[in-house]
């Protein structure tokens, strides 16, 4: 395991750091006055006793280090530990009253956007429960206001601001895709419908923009399940269908709130009772935890049911039955935003065991699972950073390899994409699937009749 060919021995220095045109041109435009003014504004106006308590309370004990996959993957390099990321960004900004250099900011952008998945694992390792992810998001907020956010993720935020979806999917493309999936799915169920804008349906099904853009088959699968389970459901034809939210991750809270508002008001307009969403983690966080709060909704105004919980419901209620269990040895990745973010890990295991014959757990797991390394907007910073993402998540590769599973279930889009990169890079010979893929594959394709 020590040869140059072995990717397990990559170190950060062996990966070239790309220059990001958006960061560079943003820095170019900045003046010391502007930097100081923005930082002071954010710290003064947008933080309060919570931030103060975090800064005053940290005893520099270093226990958070053990929590961070970046630290563990980079041979325990201290600068990757959570508290060090705070020290090298917001503490310094606070100490210098915002009077920081452009080189400092260049580093701060990287630390906050590329060396932290805001997965909150570290706040479970800090004895005081200090929310370091919150502070990294605060740094991102400052970067947003200074207009030095990395290019690709900024572009997705731009897309959000214009189209209310993440991928510049135009209104007609969205509807057209749904109709196309509906048409295809009629090969399996001839009267299958993807009901658009159906007032008073029980459930609004929502997805993230990459589904219509690249993975329309997932909508097909979901429609098949809804139809087979006899659900009274609908999908919106109007903006508000996308539950993803990258603005939440760049600190563009205003756009983030606008996205979450559109999402819930679409559900309100359609008079649905619940919202079910596909297998995405950050989208769940956006509507369950963050976007709703900006809008003054303490908790989401509609029950938001993540796919994991929904599958659990369909299977335990017998609305969907498994014809023949999946044979291959599978393992399950717990996405931060639905396990640490919503405690769905036990339900996920129950579903996996209902669907698969041979399940092996990763270690550590549940709330303590290692992050995929892609979430928190990191993968959305784009291809230029893929190389370092691979290095920064070696520990995940080791964890995966140790399971000996053939199939890796990743019930979150970001995790899915990130783990796909990991599996290829470390040559792990694992297939990656959504849980929905497996249910679709193993389910009995007949229509549920109540009482039968």
């Amino acid at each position, binding site marked *: 395991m020590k040869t140059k060919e072995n990717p397990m021995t990559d170190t950060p220095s062996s990966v070239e750091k790309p220059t990001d045109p958006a960061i560079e041109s943003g820095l170019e435009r900045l003046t010391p006055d502007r930097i100081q003014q923005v930082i002071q504004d954010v710290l003064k106006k947008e933080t309060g006793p919570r931030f103060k308590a975090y800064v005053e309370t940290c005893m520099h004990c270093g226990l958070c280090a053990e929590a961070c996959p970046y630290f563990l993957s980079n041979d325990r390099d201290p600068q990757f530990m959570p508290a060090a990321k705070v020290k090298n960004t917001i503490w310094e900004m606070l100490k210098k009253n915002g009077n920081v250099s452009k080189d400092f900011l260049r580093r701060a952008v990287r630390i906050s956007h590329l060396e932290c998945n805001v997965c909150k694992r570290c706040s479970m*390792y800090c*004895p005081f429960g200090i929310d370091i992810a919150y502070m990294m998001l605060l740094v991102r907020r400052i970067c947003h206001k200074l207009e030095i956010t990395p290019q690709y993720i900024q572009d997705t935020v731009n897309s959000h601001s214009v189209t209310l979806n993440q991928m510049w999917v135009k209104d007609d493309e969205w509807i057209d895709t749904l109709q196309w999936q509906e048409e295809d799915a009629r090969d399996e169920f001839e009267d299958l419908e993807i009901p658009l804008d159906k007032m008073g349906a029980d459930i609004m099904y929502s997805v993230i923009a990459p589904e219509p853009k690249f993975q329309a088959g997932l909508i097909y699968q979901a429609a098949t399940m809804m139809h087979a389970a006899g659900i009274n459901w609908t999908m919106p034809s109007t903006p508000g269908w996308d539950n993803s939210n990258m603005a939440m991750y760049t600190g563009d809270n205003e756009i983030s709130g606008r996205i979450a508002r559109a999402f819930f008001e679409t559900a309100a307009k359609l008079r649905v009772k619940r919202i079910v969403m596909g297998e995405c983690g950050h989208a769940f966080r956006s509507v369950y935890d963050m976007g709703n709060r900006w809008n003054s909704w303490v908790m989401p105004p509609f029950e938001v049911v993540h796919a994991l919980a929904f599958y659990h419901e369909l299977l335990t209620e017998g609305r969907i039955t498994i014809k023949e269990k999946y044979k291959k040895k599978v393992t399950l990745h717990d996405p931060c935003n639905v396990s640490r973010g919503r405690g769905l890990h036990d339900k996920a295991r129950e579903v996996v065991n209902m669907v698969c014959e041979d399940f092996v757990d990763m270690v550590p797991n549940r709330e303590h699972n290692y992050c995929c390394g892609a979430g928190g907007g990191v993968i959305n910073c784009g291809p230029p950073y893929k190389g370092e993402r691979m290095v920064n998540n070696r520990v995940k590769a080791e964890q995966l390899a140790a399971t000996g599973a053939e199939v890796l279930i990743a019930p979150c889009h970001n995790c899915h994409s990130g783990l796909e990169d990991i599996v290829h890079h470390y040559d792990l010979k694992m297939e990656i699937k959504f849980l929905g893929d497996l249910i679709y594959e193993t389910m009995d394709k007949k229509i549920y009749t109540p009482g039968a």
Partner: protein
Amino acid sequence: MNSFIAFIMGPMVWISVIIFLGGLTFKLVGILGAVRQKEPYIYSYMTLKHSLRSIGAWMIPFFPRSARMSPIYYGISYLFHILLFLVPLFLASHIVLINEAFQISWPALNDSVADGLTAGVIAALIFFVVRRFRVPEVNYLTSAMDYILILVVLLPFLTGFLAYHQWVAYQWITVIHILSGELMLIIIPFSRFSHMLNAPLTRAYMGSEFGQVRQAKDW
């Protein structure tokens, strides 16, 4: 000299206790008020049940995974924090003074036990210092203030230890002992020692967010 000693054993004790308790109270009121004013949403997510659940979970020795992953540091820290309160409060000499002042008393530790525990506190502090040097990630975070804070705790315990044994300039050591004890009390509200107040609050908030909103564990 006697009038100076009378001052540090009399009014100065009052002053430092008042600053300590008053400072913490003032701080607590300040935090709660500032939350109400600037981040009122925080109260929407706090529940007593989940606050206590989280604080409780973190009080059980070696229960959080974080504790199990650093057992030595965690174990020493844990004992250190207990002794930090236990030794001074149950020290016979302190109880005698309190008894004479307020006519209240409680059982005291055996002197040699107390002596051993004091040595334990000192050893723990030395361990903390060594850890700050030896463990790279801790060293990376360490600033001069971290050593100053250790010194502030070390001083009363070390001088107490020396005073008990009467090895050195007894009078001076005892005067330093009294003063450094008072100093520690006084700076608690104004330094990161205020984690004795803040930590339960941050823990309670995180515990509530995890327990109430996210329905997950935070240990």
